[in-house]
């Protein structure tokens, strides 16, 4: 989304205020070998601000983005300097919304369009943050030497309804994201 990046950059230049108050956190992230392949298990905690919760209660759908990438380090000057490249990068997007009639919180994978409903928001968020045995692409993992898996998650503010977007982009209460976290190899 280059346009949004430009817009962000532009706003950064104009208002020069911190865009991300990194309050999402990754509890754990592990890569395990199962058979010949590798899977990722992780738990991301999504503590939401009251402003975000209010929006959810008012039927505004919120999109969460989970970004996972594999980074391969090729050492050039021993341990001092290595060449980095990203052979694989993926983004999993979930939409969380409140279903007033059923009084359920629906989490929907925007890639597969599968959805599940949860009676409470914390259940929904817990399930949302739970990455259970995500298969990693074997073609990019012939060997795991110098290979790292990085993970982060954020709110996709550009998925908010247009009228909310400028306010959300400028408000600290909407700047929810986690830093990049490196997964452990089991």
């Amino acid at each position, binding site marked *: 989304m280059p346009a949004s990046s430009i817009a962000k950059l532009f706003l950064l230049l*104009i208002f020069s205020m911190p865009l991300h108050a990194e309050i999402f956190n990754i509890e754990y992230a592990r890569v395990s070998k199962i058979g010949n392949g590798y899977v990722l298990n992780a738990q991301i905690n999504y503590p939401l601000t009251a402003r975000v919760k*209010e929006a959810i209660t008012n*039927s505004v759908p919120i999109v969460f983005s989970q970004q996972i990438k594999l980074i391969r380090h090729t050492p050039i000057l021993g341990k001092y300097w290595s060449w980095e490249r990203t052979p694989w990068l993926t983004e999993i997007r979930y939409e969380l919304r409140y279903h007033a009639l059923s009084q359920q919180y629906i989490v929907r994978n925007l890639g597969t369009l599968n959805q599940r409903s949860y009676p409470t928001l914390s259940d929904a968020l817990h399930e949302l943050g739970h990455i259970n045995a995500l298969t990693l692409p074997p073609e990019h993992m012939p060997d795991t030497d110098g290979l790292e898996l990085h993970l982060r998650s954020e709110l996709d503010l550009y998925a908010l309804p247009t*009228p909310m977007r*400028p306010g959300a982009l400028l408000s600290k209460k909407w700047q929810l994201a986690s830093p990049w976290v490196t997964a452990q190899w089991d």
Partner: protein
Amino acid sequence: MGNGTMGLSLIKRLSSGTAPYLYLAILLVILAYFLSLATQDSSQLNDLFLLIFGLAIVISLLLIALLARSFYKLYHDYKNKTEGSRLTVRLVSLFVLLIILSTSIVYGFSIHFLHRGINSWFDVEIEQALNDALELSRSSLGIRMRTMLRQTRMMSGVLSELPDKDLNHNVHELTKLSGAFEVSIWDLNGQLVISSIGNNSILLPSRPSETIFNQIKKKEDYISLDPSEESGFLLRAAVRLPKKLPAQPERFLQVIFPVDERLSALGKKVHNAYSNYKELSYLRKPLITIFTLTLSLIVLLTTLASIWFAIWISRRIVQPLQDLSAGTQAVAAGNYNMQLSAQGHDEVGFLVRSFNQMTQRLTHARNANQASHRKLEQQTNHLTTVLGSLSSGVITIDNKHFIRSANIASSKILDVDLQQRLEGMVSNLSTHHPKLTPLTLVIEQHFSLKQSWQQQVEIQQQKGLQTLICHGTPLPDDTGYVIVFDDVTALLQAQRNAAWGEVAKRLAHEIKNPLTPIQLSAERLQHKYLPLVPSDQAETLTKLTKTIVQQVEAMKGMVNDFSDYARNPGLTLSQQDIGELIHDVLTLYQSNPHHHFTLLNSPKKISLNIDANRFRQVLHNLLKNAIEASEEANMPVDIIVSYHLMKQDSISLLEITIRDHGPGIADDKLHSIFEPYATNKQKGSGLGLAIVKKIIEEHHGHVWAENTGDNGACIIIHLPTTIEER
């Protein structure tokens, strides 16, 4: 090279004149369009909203900077009182006031309508109705949920009684009987025990969520309404299976029921309406904010651009007026060649063209004026030359008696520098030059008559009485008088001379002839009758005849004088050394020791073209006259003769003076002694000085007499150095 030049000229063309303003206007319209488009939810541009918004802010800042610069320039011009700055400021103020006033009104109303429009979407009653509808749907679905939970409990009761081997068959049967989508039995570790799915295309049952497991572990039943994408709603119920044996693991039954299609569709509709309303209601504030912001930005942009345009248009309106003002000042300063570039076909353009026509006409008029002035000057010069070359004196006097002009001849005739007396009163002339009193009196006398006049005036000049014939003519429109006068002295003299010549000729002719017989007869009478008369009478006879002879001789002398005077033989001119000539004549008078003659020689030899014989006669007559005058008064004969060259009125003259130490000349005779028979001597014919004058005048010279300061008289002769033969 060519391309570069073309590019440069294109840039120049695009950045000059009205072009930048047009581009700005188009850019603003596009920007405003995009801005409004980006606020629409469906627009593809809404991701770009912030970018467009930022761009608009940047353009606004740019415009503010431009405006600040324009205003500063305007203020600077106004402060320095630059031509046209006041009008520009006035126009700009007016435009800015109008723009701000109109945009404020439009902006105010727009904001008001925007708020009202958005707020009008929301209604308390509609909100309540939607809440009620949602509640109704929930109640309706709640009945179904409770029924299904009961049914699930019954199913769990049935299944708990059965041995594990019969479970599979009975679960299938129950699925069919209950109309459930799927029936599955799970243990609390999350392991599937058995399942039956109504739809054959689905292989695996839906795994219960952690919440269900947790709830079952708490020994609570679970029922929930799950929204589904495909089939509207599903009812998920989970009930713990009673254990037959204590060692048996804990299990629970999960049954998923479909919801009645109609109920599901209605519920979905109600929910959609409710959630849309809820979302929209929540978005009301940001929506109003963003619309207000967009509108404000568009208004700001429009206002700024309008003000900028107002400044530009004001300058454009004022520019020709400014040019006109500068042009008018240039014309006022005398530059009539001022031409302004006329643009446009409006009234200002018309004014500029009129100005250009006016300056053209002024230039023509000035040229014509200059030409006529030159012509007038030429005519004046011509007239001055004509007047200057006139032998008559011409004086103009205005109606206030001031002398306005006098030609050269007038000064010459009156022997007064009239050029110095210009712009002076006529009466002042006689104050400075008393000799001119008769003339000024005559002029003053006739001034009030306002008609032409002519009169003879006599002026006492140094050389003698001068007779002038004056003509006065009033100038047109009572602007004064023109006085024309001629010196007729010479003419009168010539007439007098001619008359005397005629008299002399007749006398000579009529008297000379009988004189010789009278003399001869008297001598014969004496000779014949002297012996005959008695001796006492002889003496008487002798005395008588002698008297006759003497008188006849005297008469002869007189007749000869007359003859000389009347004679007009013409001059025999030759180059003569004046000094030598005078010296020769004086030599003849040296014999008498009582007579003293002094000759003051001129330092250089002076030759003059004169008739030597007649000039000798002049000198003889003058010397004789001086000697006789002194002798008669018994005064010593002491005569000083001098001659020298001199210049008078740029004419080279020879001046000869003969000064005696006699009794001098009576004042009343001073100016008439050169007239025939004007003598005061006892002897002489009375023609000697008249002859002198005649000869001198024949040589185009002047002769006059003056009394010297102490005693004696002085005869002065002026002769031009070049004498033409008559």
